[in-house]
């Protein structure tokens, strides 16, 4: 027992470097986002008016405090563009996560049913595409979906359609891209819980006469709920802020919030509004982030 204690001290000392790093490069930057979201847009470099300068002392700090403005946030709630962006992001994330669950569950279940020595190989096969670039995988779909791409050629030669179908720049292409990119994130946690499940429970239920679907609903699915929750959060949170996939695959008439933020920042050079948009996006995600943090902690630190 005493060994543990002695070990703990150097381990804690080792935390200092990563702790400081994350404070400096993860937490402190949010302070800057908050600060700039409260300042005014200016045509300058950098394109915002300084809100306060600590070197000028307390009096200057006071006057600066009164100059803080919530204008950027007022703009966000009053302008339909932003409200629609947020709503669209949430709708897309909900729909895409639901599709991911429906597609990912049978695959994870299938892998969990494989003989144990095949399971790591199957999981490896699911994970390898995740290692290859996000951008490349989206680009691969553009190759297939474009006007004279493979899909249209196939449909034309099978005489299923008479003119090429427009696949790109549509919501269906975007959903396809999202589902394709996030599928491993859904399968991984689902498989982890399904593989740990005691098969005797399912067997007992079917021995007692339950039909397969009933076994699934009464035994398998309820027991896999922790995996479902982890998979859903692991997909939902990043999809809300997704930029690349809607930008390359969806049409340009309705934007997700990640795209709006990008546009404000890079095209309109309106850093304060982009910062305010980021703060609101973060607020939307606080609840799912807290739940995710709990789950992650329980999973990684439960064995302590």
């Amino acid at each position: 027992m005493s060994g543990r204690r002695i070990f703990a001290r150097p381990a804690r000392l080792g935390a200092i470097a990563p702790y400081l790093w994350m404070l400096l490069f993860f937490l402190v930057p949010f302070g800057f986002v908050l600060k700039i979201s409260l300042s005014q847009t200016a045509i300058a470099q950098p394109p915002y008016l300084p809100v306060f300068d600590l070197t000028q002392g307390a009096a200057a700090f006071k006057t600066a405090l009164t100059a803080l403005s919530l204008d950027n946030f007022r703009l966000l709630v009053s302008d339909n563009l932003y409200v629609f962006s947020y709503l669209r992001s949430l709708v897309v994330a909900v729909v895409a996560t639901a599709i991911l669950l429906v597609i990912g569950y049978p695959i994870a279940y299938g892998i969990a049913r494989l003989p144990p020595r095949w399971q790591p190989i199957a999981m490896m096969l699911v994970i390898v595409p995740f290692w290859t670039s996000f951008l490349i995988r989206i680009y691969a779909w553009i190759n297939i979906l474009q006007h004279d791409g493979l899909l249209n050629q196939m449909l034309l030669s099978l005489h299923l359609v008479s003119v090429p179908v427009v696949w790109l720049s549509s919501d269906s292409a975007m959903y396809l891209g999202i589902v394709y990119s996030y599928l491993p994130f859904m399968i991984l946690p689902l498989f982890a819980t399904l593989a740990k499940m005691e098969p005797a429970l399912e067997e007992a239920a079917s021995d007692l006469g339950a039909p397969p679907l009933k076994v699934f609903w009464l035994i398998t699915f309820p027991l896999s709920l922790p995996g479902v929750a982890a998979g859903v959060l692991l997909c939902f949170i990043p999809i809300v802020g997704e930029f690349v996939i809607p930008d390359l695959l969806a049409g340009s008439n309705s934007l997700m919030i990640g795209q709006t933020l990008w546009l404000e920042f890079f095209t309109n050079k309106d850093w304060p509004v982009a910062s305010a948009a980021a703060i609101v996006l973060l607020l939307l995600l606080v609840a799912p982030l807290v739940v995710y943090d709990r789950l992650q902690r329980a999973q990684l630190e439960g064995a302590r």
Partner: protein
Amino acid sequence: MNGPRGLSPFNVASLALGLAFLYLPIVILMIYSFNASRLVTVWGGWSLRWYQEFFQDRAMIEAGWMSLRVGATSATIATLLGTLAAVALSRGEGFKGRTLFSGMLYAPLVMPEVITGLSLLLLFVAVNAERGFWTVTIAHTTLTMCFVAVVVQSRLTSLDRSLEEAAMDLGCSPARAFLAVTLPLIAPAIAAGWMLAFTLSLDDLVIASFTTGPGSATLPIRIYSEVRLGVKPEINAICTLVIALISMVIVVASLATKLSGAQRETAAPL
């Protein structure tokens, strides 16, 4: 003890369809990178034409070199910091600010990249840092060290602690016990963490776009600006090269893991 569980036809079908869905687009992309014809509609025979074009594209080569340097540097720093963080979380017992620490490490895993990128850029602008190689490297380190921490921590959690305790009972100092017992056991997870960090850095578009400066574009930034203009066979070739590079890293690392004799205890890949 589990025995072979029954695979229903439904299980087999969902597995086969799922894997086909995951791999077909990538395979098609790779095949078309060897297409001699400029048009996707026409198969003009096998050719290395688009690879030659890539190797003559100075801007693209420079971006690729930049990405490799950023990836290797940030992955190395991230592996160091992430491993320290994982050891602290799984062996440090309770310490002040532990909740904040683990929260800061888990949040970036799911945090939308636009938020991480924007906030880091605002920091760099506020301190007047010159944007380029180092700002992108710092940004990538911040993101990827969290992935390293999770991979290493899950390995440490599943590790039998009585081994460390035995070493110390036999007279090892804590540092010695860590170096002689713990470190070799978590080495495969650390290697996997480095690979993950490297490929994530090589892959990232959004955070790099925010934190880079003029004249130092990474490969994804270049590819993205080309892709926005439409499909170009040269991009197929570059993507195939990137996939080949990443597969090589995976193969080499898993061979190294096997040689180290610890393959049975490899941590979960994520």
